[in-house]
């Protein structure tokens, strides 16, 4: 355990400050200190993508990111994708396609898909599969997940939001 320090960053558009060991994982800080449990622990080793969040719009595994690394940066979690009651198009697509069973991988899948479409607004099927490949789903909902990403491309008209 290192000494505590103040770490400041933006989460879902809000400025936050946490007094914590700067070596703690972003995942832990989001879930336990900031009351945002939508981001999940799957492996803790950067191998499953359940903990995916956006840092400056890029997808990161929060379980492998020390909170000090996001000092001064902007983090978006699954909870921050919707605008009020209006779901993000990727969320709407997952909902329309029922792209989950247990749903434990879903937050990470949706965040990964948002990052994918941000980088490539009109991906081909192969690009979708490749872009989603680092997120694991043990219920094996992949066919619907890929369909949902395709649907999200339609919803955004091939241009990210």
């Amino acid at each position: 355990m290192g000494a505590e320090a103040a770490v400041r960053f933006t989460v879902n558009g809000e400025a936050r400050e946490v007094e914590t060991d700067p070596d703690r994982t972003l995942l832990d800080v989001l879930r336990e200190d900031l009351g945002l449990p939508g981001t999940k622990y799957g492996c803790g080793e950067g191998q499953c993508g359940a903990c995916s969040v956006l840092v400056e719009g890029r997808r990161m595994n929060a379980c492998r990111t020390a909170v000090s690394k996001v000092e001064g940066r902007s983090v978006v979690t699954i909870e921050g994708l919707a605008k009020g009651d209006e779901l993000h198009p990727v969320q709407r697509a997952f909902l329309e396609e029922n792209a989950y069973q247990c749903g434990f991988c879903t937050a990470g899948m949706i965040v990964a898909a948002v990052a994918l479409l941000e980088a490539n607004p009109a991906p081909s099927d192969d690009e979708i599969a490749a872009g989603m490949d680092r997120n694991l789903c043990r219920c094996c909902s992949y066919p619907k997940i890929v369909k949902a990403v395709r649907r999200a491309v339609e919803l955004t008209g091939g241009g990210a939001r």
Partner: protein
Amino acid sequence: MASWPESPRLIGTSIPRLDGLAKASGRAKYPSDIRPEGLLFGVLLSSPHASAKVKAIDLEPAKTMPGVKAVLALATAGESTIFYQGQEIAAVAAETEEKARDAARAIRVEYEILPHVATERQSAAEGAPKVFPTGNTRAARAQTTGKPDEAMQKADAVIEATYELPVITHVCLEPHGLTAHWKGPDSITVYASTQSVMGVANDMVENLGLESANVTVLTDVMGGGFGSKFNADTWGIAAAKLAKEAGRPVRMFLDRAQEHQLGGNRPSAKAKIKLGAAKDGKLVAMVAETSGTGGRGGSNFPLPYVYKVDDRSRAHTEIFVNGGSARAMRAPGHPQGCAVMEAAMDDLAAKLGINPLAFRLANLAEADMVAGGVNRTDLYKEQVERGAKLIGWDRWKPRGQNGDGPIKRGLGLALHQWGGGGAQDKQVACIINPDGSVELRSATQDIGTGARTILAVIAAEVLGLEVGQIKSNIGNSTFPPGQSSGGSTTTPSMAPPCLDAVEKARDELFKRIAPGLDAKPEDLSLKGGKLLVKGEEKATWAQACRKLGMMPVTATGVFGPGLASTGVGGCQFAEVTVDVETGVVRVKKIVAVQDSGLILDMLTWKSQVYGGVIGGLNYGLFEERIMDEGTGAMLNPDMEMYKLAGATDIPEIVVDAYDTPEMRVRGVIGVGEPPTISTAAAIGNAVANAIGVRVPKWPMSPMNVLDALAAAEGKA
């Protein structure tokens, strides 16, 4: 006999999940997300050794560390024997997870390290250390029917081969665990990631000496179980004890490595099979010696499987290893039995020079008890015909004729069956409130299959409402007794009492409001959110319910005959390419034909089949628990070296619901397990078809493929 509505409006259509919005928005609260005021973090200290005696445990260093609120020994010094890496030693609760981890590390444990046997090979080897009190192996007597040896003499073609499947683990994405919250000195509420709220409640009652009435187990949603999450487990009970000691709620979940090591696994299987057939393609005899390991647990699997061999013998040997104990895993035993049987069938068909599809159809067992005693012969024929068309079986070519370059293409198939019948002692309560809200209650749970949605579909059907109008309250152990989510039994156990409850509630509603409408109860009906009297619209649903005054209608439904059944089956076809230079197998397409009686929600049903197929693809191509013989440790307790399919590994999958009128009259049967059974078998057969050589060991990894090719070359 009770019956399902005749021309249903909702049943059998594709209905989205009730909890979809919660999942897509990230608002769904999983048991590992629950954070009651004052929550402490539990960490389990587990054994680094695979075989040892615990000589001493010193908890003191942990107790005095900052933020530590309670420490508990789970092993007993001088008494406990460690049988596998990961076995529970102690548990700690602290203010933060880091503090709990630091404290767990500070616990001093003295082990006397004993010799171990980490693999089947090590365990069964001559002169192996005897590490289990009853011996490292236990051989069952051969079970013989007819005269297999005599019959084998008359066979025109005989194959003799050994097939092997590895131990795999469940890898639930949400690890095992629970959050324990005492509500008073003798009363506890537990948020558990479980397939059985009643099972966990019962464990709490038995281990903590509590009264049933004072235990509440809640599972709103949970992150997968696949057969491994029926109980509170040692760590769950530890969480409750730590919470009691600390006077604060405790959350205790395994980490990924522990999840692999002690969260359960599917046993391995090895089968030395001699299978003989006559020239005309009829099986005549089978002699099988099989074995497997489930750690210290059993590893048996059905064999023969699906096919009829009158003269046969089978002897199974349990091999014990220093590895975590097996738990039920999606269709226990069947994927193993299916893979070895179907491999032998395919190899024999190749030897006979017969099309493997025709060979299978000529040897179907007529009335298999596994499949509910139904004669499946004609069913299988139709299903195989449908599957063959969908995969393009007319492209099938014998082994060795599947390409000249390094990339070979192959087709394979396999058949499976499962019970999937339900229990008859479960209940559902239906409450119709004066404000028009409808609630269903039962102590079953939704492990991701859509159980919550399916109950609502039934209620909405009967009451003429929309599915979203029904509140499907499950995942609460204090509700009327519900089914555990296992064995594909949930839907067939819960759907009949649900129908009964809702029909009773509707009838009671009619009885109570009919007089005020100057009508007889039998004149009333419900349709499109309206109350009809003699077929004429008289009130909205809400207006009708308001006539109840202050008193809601409550009814409890029970099982009724005629609504559910048992015994399902299907077949799967796989198309693969294999690069014989690298050994890399790519699955190109899978066709899954599946029956399961009356399908209540086609959407969640198909999700189950997709999930089953891809689970089987993982088993066929990737998964394997790798043990280090030197240390007894699991070498890949993660999600990287323990390989699982990602999006790029997913082929085209065609799911064909065998949803015929004859099937529908059978009533509801479960589907969670059957579609995962035959995938690995079909893939194995497609690989053999592609490269002309049997890969006798699953998974179909580059190493196993290249080994098989090298062995064949060595022989040639």
